[in-house]
Structures are given as C-alpha cells and as structure tokens.
C-alpha cells in the first residue's frame, strides 16, 4: 500500500483526489436538485416530506450519504491545504499583476470554496441537523404514515430575506466554482482531447449556469409566491 500513499502525497495525486471528489459532488448536485424541486409542488409538502423521510431512512441512501459527507470534507480540507501550500510556494507576489486569458474563478477557487462551505454549514444546520438530530420539527401524517414536516421548516426559513440572500450568495459562489471546476476535473484526470474537450468545456459552462439557477428558483419562489 506504500505506492498508494506515495501517489496521494504527490502533487498530481492530491489533484486527482480533488478531481474525483469534485466530480462526485457534481453528480450529487443533480440528484439533490431533482429531489428538492418537489418543494415547488403545491401539495402542502406531502411529496417532499415523504421523499425526505425516505432519504433519511433508506439504508442505501444512508450509506451513500456518509460517503457524501466524507467527500465534502475531503474536498474542502484538501482544497484548502493545496491552496495554502500553493500560496506559500508562490512566495512573493508581483507588484504589477497582468494575467492573460485566465478566468477570475480559476484563481479564486479556494475563496469560492470557503463561501460554499459556509453555505453548506448554514444549510445543513438549518434543515439536515434539525431533521436528523432534533425533535423540533412537527409531525405530519399522510395515509397512515407519520413523518417529520421538513417542508414547513423549509417554507418558514425561505420567508426570511437574509436566508434567501445567503442562499443566493452561496449559489453564486457555486456557479463560479463550477465554471472552472467542471472542466478542470477532467484535465486533472488527463482527459483532454480535441475530440471531446470542447464538449466538456461547453457542458461545464451550461452546468455552472443551469444548476445554481435551478436551485435558486426554490428559495425565490417560496419567498415571493408561497407566503
């Protein structure tokens, strides 16, 4: 196993870990979005509450969710360590900076990541933590099945302007993070070829726009139309 330790301690190995965890989180974003779009349903939260109950009790989902928490932490911690190391190894900055053909996002991935991490803490503290570890949520019974009313908690949260604004900031940061991260993940894995790289870059930009926008609809819709 020494070879594996050696691999993950190399610069490329660490970046491969960032890439793989990043790609996993990119996939997670789709699954999470599809589930949560049920918050837009006008059924008093029945579909969403049943779905949320399934997500916290299904053993397969539970197992994957532990992987997800681990990958989020790994991606965040390793990313910050890499950024700190790179900063140190760059040493003194130039007095004039004039970088060509580079995106702002690509040079600020750590800052964007910190914003996203802060958002995740706010988001999980408000919903996931209350759902899993407290009895703060009311109970709702649908066809004899009693579940926690997470929908009500979400709905109340999205009536607060500051929460909606915080979500929009988090999603804005996510969009920029994806703008660079999506295609960068493939480059790190060595996948750069004229056959498919233009498609990956195009898809990455669409993804970075569409996914955060679709997420943003949920709090905005609740704030304005579901009082």
């Amino acid at each position, binding site marked *: 196993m020494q*070879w594996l330790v050696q*691999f993950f301690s*190399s*610069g*490329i*190995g*660490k*970046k*491969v870990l960032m890439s793989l965890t990043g790609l996993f989180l990119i996939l997670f974003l789709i699954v999470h979005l599809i589930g949560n779009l049920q918050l837009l349903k006008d059924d008093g939260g029945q579909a969403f509450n049943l779905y949320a109950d399934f997500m916290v009790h299904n053993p397969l989902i539970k197992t994957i969710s532990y992987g997800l928490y681990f990958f989020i932490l790994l991606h965040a911690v390793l990313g910050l360590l*890499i950024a700190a*190391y*790179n*900063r*140190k*190894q*760059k*040493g*003194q*900055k*130039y*007095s*004039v*900076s*004039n*970088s*060509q*053909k*580079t*995106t702002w996002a*690509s*040079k600020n*991935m750590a800052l964007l990541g910190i914003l996203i991490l802060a958002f995740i803490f706010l988001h999980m503290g408000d919903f996931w933590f209350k759902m899993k570890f407290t009895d703060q949520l009311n109970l709702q019974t649908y066809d004899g099945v009693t579940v926690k009313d997470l929908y009500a908690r979400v709905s109340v949260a999205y009536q607060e302007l500051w929460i909606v604004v915080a979500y929009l900031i988090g999603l804005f940061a996510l969009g920029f993070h994806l703008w*660079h991260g999506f*295609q*960068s993940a493939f*480059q*790190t*894995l*060595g*996948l*750069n*070829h004229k056959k498919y790289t233009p498609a990956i870059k195009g898809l990455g930009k669409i993804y970075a726009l569409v996914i955060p926008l679709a997420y943003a609809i949920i709090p905005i819709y609740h704030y304005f139309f579901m009082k």
Partner: protein
Amino acid sequence: MSDLHLNIKVWRQNQKNDSGHFETYKVTANEHMSFLEMLDVLNEQLVREKKDPVAFEHDCREGICGTCSMVINGQPHGPLAATTTCQLHMRFFKEGETIVVEPFRASAFPVLKDLVVDRSSFDRIIQSGGFISVNTGQAPDGNAIPIEKDKAGKSFEAAACIGCGACVAACPNGSAMLFTSAKVTHLGLLPQGKVEEEKRVQAMVAQMDKEGFGMCSNIGACEAECPKEIKLENIAYLNRAYLKSVFTGE
C-alpha cells in the same frame, strides 16, 4: 528612428536573502532596440555613474535559449505573445511610459541578484528523468525507426519548450507542470522515449514536488505566457502518463 524616454522601475536586490526594493531610472532608448539592449543602455549609464548595474540573465538573444528571465509589466517576457524578452522590441512601448521589471517569482526560483533567479530546479527535474538512455556505438541509420507524422509533430511542438521558466513565473501557484509535461510529452510520444516513460514520469514528478513547485489548478496562465506556446494538453498527457505509471506500471 525615434527615441523613447522611459522610466524603468526595476527590482534591485543585492543577494539571495536580502529583502529587495524597486528603483526607478530614466532611460532613453531607441525604438528598434530589444528590451535587453535597453537594459544594456541603462547599465552603461549606471556604470558611468559608478553605480551597480542591474543584473539580468541573457545568452543567445535570438529567442531560443530561454535565459532572459524577467517579468515586464506583470507578464513574463513582456506583453508580446509567443516572444522572449530578447525578441521584444521597444517599439511596443509608449513614449514616457513607466515599465515595471521584476524577477520571476516562485519559491523554487529564488532571486540571486536583481532580476537573476536560480532555475537549477529545472535542471534537476531534467536530470531526474528528462532524457533517453542510449547505448554508445555507431550512429543508427536515419529513419530506421518509423515515427507517425502526427506523433512526430506533437512531440516536436512539446520539444519547442526552451525551459525558460515563464510558466512557473506566470502560475499563481508557482507550478512547474507545463515545463515538466512538455518534456514528458516530447520524449514519451517517440518510440525511443516511450520505453522509459513510466520511470521517467515517476522520477520527474517526484523531483518537481521535491523542488517545492506548487500544484497545478488548470488556470492556464502558463499557456498564455509561454514564449513557445506550449499547450495545456501536455499537462493532461503528464497526468495521464503519471496515473498510468502508478496504477498499471510494471
């Protein structure tokens, strides 16, 4: 033939561990001079004034050796794309302009004096594996080993790297991935070099890490500033070759 009156704000540092500072000099330079010739004029002026001339590296002055390392107005080798400092002419600057000249910055490239940095870390990366081992003896026949045109072309493009270090200087992470990947691609695409690729990639990546270069985050500043237009695809090649050597290597 018109003269330019310039303010040259240049980094002065006496030796390796000094803190260093900027000094501004007035220089009158002809528009046909190269940037290095303009610095020569400045240095003659400084010598006449019994001052220490600005130390900078130069050798071929024809854009192929990669010695002339400096950052001009925030860009390694100055504002012109695909051009080394020695091939940059003063006609690309404006009358009365203040030009800021700094050394390449990266902790793996420590400043020795003024604009001179120690780039021996690149030499050690090459020594670790950037070569093809051959037996001595008679020279092989030309074209004895067939090489596909496409591969020869790509290899040649990567071989255009002159090892100047502009990629490291431009990289906000101080990463040497573009340089190392150019060497790995150049050798790895040829049948003579393919044989030792696994060993080469492992050794060169290990040496690159050991020298304290940062990690690549695919920003692309290196590609934008490279005077020989080495492409980011080379870095993907290196990543691929490294992964292959780690997971499927003999």
